[in-house]
């Protein structure tokens, strides 16, 4: 569904993504893990058209995304849940959600939009209780749900998420990730960027490990979770754990 070959992204003259190839098949949940500054968010921004000037090949359903502006990419069926949620704090929860569907209003899809609004409210009942409330007054977890809900209002077939667990309590992280599994079961393909590697790999089908702008490892998520290198670098296991019992 999404196919990336030899992607290179630049910030000025600095190459932040150094020839990344990666793919997401229809119906898959793929996690992209890596340390700070490894280029995970940059990659998502390039897919969404937020970082023009990339080189290589970025294709969605075999159509190139080259030169497309973000609204056109959203219309193709790709939505981003950005890092730090980036909701509109003064606007109500309802307006935030409606804004997510703004490319569809032009197409007069009012009935479908109403249905999707209902779907989001069912997915996150807490949002239904707070439709009139200013989004800025929501808790962190609720804001994250709102950000996901807003992305879903664009009716994406591919959902990109940038660090949805950031700053959330473990219980809420669990809830958000469970929602992703549910969305995948409903047929949405998901590319998840996470620093919380353990949690991200647990729910994913496959994963990629990014290191300073390059993919150094890929595989099915069970293999990655069991991988010594991944454990050392991303799952917070101390070197001591490995030496234990080895004299």
């Amino acid at each position, binding site marked *: 569904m999404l*196919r990336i*070959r*030899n992607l*290179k992204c630049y910030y000025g003259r600095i190459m932040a993504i*150094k*020839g990344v*190839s*990666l*793919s997401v*098949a229809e119906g898959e949940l793929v996690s992209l893990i890596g340390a700070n500054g490894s280029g995970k968010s940059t990659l998502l921004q390039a897919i969404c058209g937020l970082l023009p000037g990339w080189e290589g090949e970025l294709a969605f359903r075999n159509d190139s995304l080259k030169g497309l502006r973000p609204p056109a990419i959203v219309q193709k069926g790709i939505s981003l849940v950005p890092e730090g949620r980036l909701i509109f704090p003064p606007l109500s929860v309802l307006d935030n959600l409606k804004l997510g569907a703004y490319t569809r209003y032009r197409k007069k899809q009012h009935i479908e939009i109403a249905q999707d609004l209902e779907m989001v409210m069912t997915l996150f009942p807490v949002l239904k209780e707070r439709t009139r409330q200013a989004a800025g007054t929501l808790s962190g977890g609720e804001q994250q749900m709102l950000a996901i809900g807003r992305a879903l209002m664009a009716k994406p077939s591919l959902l990109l998420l940038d660090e949805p667990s950031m700053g959330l309590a473990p219980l809420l992280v669990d809830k958000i990730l469970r929602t992703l599994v549910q969305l995948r079961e409903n047929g949405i393909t998901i590319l998840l960027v996470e620093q919380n590697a353990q949690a991200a790999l647990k729910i994913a089908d496959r994963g990629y490990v990014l*290191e300073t702008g*390059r*993919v*150094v*490892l*890929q*595989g099915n998520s069970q*293999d990655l979770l*069991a*991988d*010594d*290198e991944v454990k050392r670098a991303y799952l917070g296991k101390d070197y001591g754990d*490995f*030496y234990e019992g*080895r004299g």
Partner: protein
Amino acid sequence: MEYPDYEQRLQIQLERLQSTLNRAFRSVPFHQKRLQEHGMDPLHVETLSDLSRLPFMERKDLGEHYPYGLFAVPLRDIVRIHTAPGTNLHPTVTGYTKHDLKVWREMVARALAASGVTALDILQITFDSGLANWGRDYKDGAETLEASVIPNTPLSLEKQLMVLRDYKTTVLITIPSAASQLVSYMFRSEFNPTGLNLKTLILVGDAVAPEFRAFLEDRLHVSVWLQYGLSEVPGPAMAFECRNHQGLHVSEDHFFPEIINPKTGEVLSPGETGEVVFTSLSNRAFPLIRFRTGDKAKLISEPCSCGCPFARIEWLGERTDDLLTINGVKLHQTQIIRHLEKALGFAPDQCRIFKKQYSYLEKYGARSYLEVWLLMNENLFSDEIKMLQKLIHNAEEKLHENIGVPVKIKLKEIRTFAGENR
């Protein structure tokens, strides 16, 4: 078995190739230095054919970085270490991570399944000590298929036949010359093959001529399947025959094959005969980047009617280098001489090395051994025959231990030394 379509396969191969290069470049000084010497960075490899811009890796590189110099992971991630005879004084040492072993197991299991092996089979593995690594890999692969495995144990022919018969073995994995040795032993000892349950013979280590295959199938009442592997960078089943027996499918999801002109190094098109070069795509501990195998083959790119999309090679059995293949073990002249020097305790003035076959056997692919001729002169001479015999006997044993194939050492006078090899 389900296979991804062409585009998907291409994508998977490219992704795996690039991350292999990234890991090798990051973790192995040898790979990093060589890429840099060629003015290359892994990011310059944007397609599978860009691989042809990278330098080759040769057998001698494996020996020069003895023991762990080519490992791409810390030793604490290694769960198995294999040693194979190298082409020089040092053996070749390879390592595996937990994940590598899993990949090999599945790869071998897939190749066995393509030969019709199932959980109902009783599988017997027979190799010389030089190919003991393959024995382990086949055992693991067959166990993954849940077949009943009789692992590789050095047995006399008599005992081997006893196990074949009494344990009701249905699949035998061995090298061609050992199979031929078995046939002649059976016929000499008046044992009718109808007394066996054997139905599948999987041959590895050497290519087989069509007549030899027909001979074995006829005498043993089996179907023969050929599989290809590398003994120094284990393991087996990197390429395997399917039910059509028309070339060997390369496990392309884990190894990317190229056929090159052995003289110029240029990549040849499908159908042209050249040397097989492999690049590993999923190996973690021991990445191979454009490894020259020395084996001659040609690539068959037409799709196979068995449904397996992996490209096939026609394995020709000849070599592009001066390695001797003895019972599947590859040996280099200089390596043999160095080991000989160590075994004798001095450097012989002159010696000649031959690959010989035990003479009592059938004409096809008889079991081979290494024969070494030493020129008899004052340095070697002793007036006590016993001393000489002891020296030769010890040297034979030591040499056998080091290179993993049977050895005979003969003392020759100057007149016969230069003569014809008979």
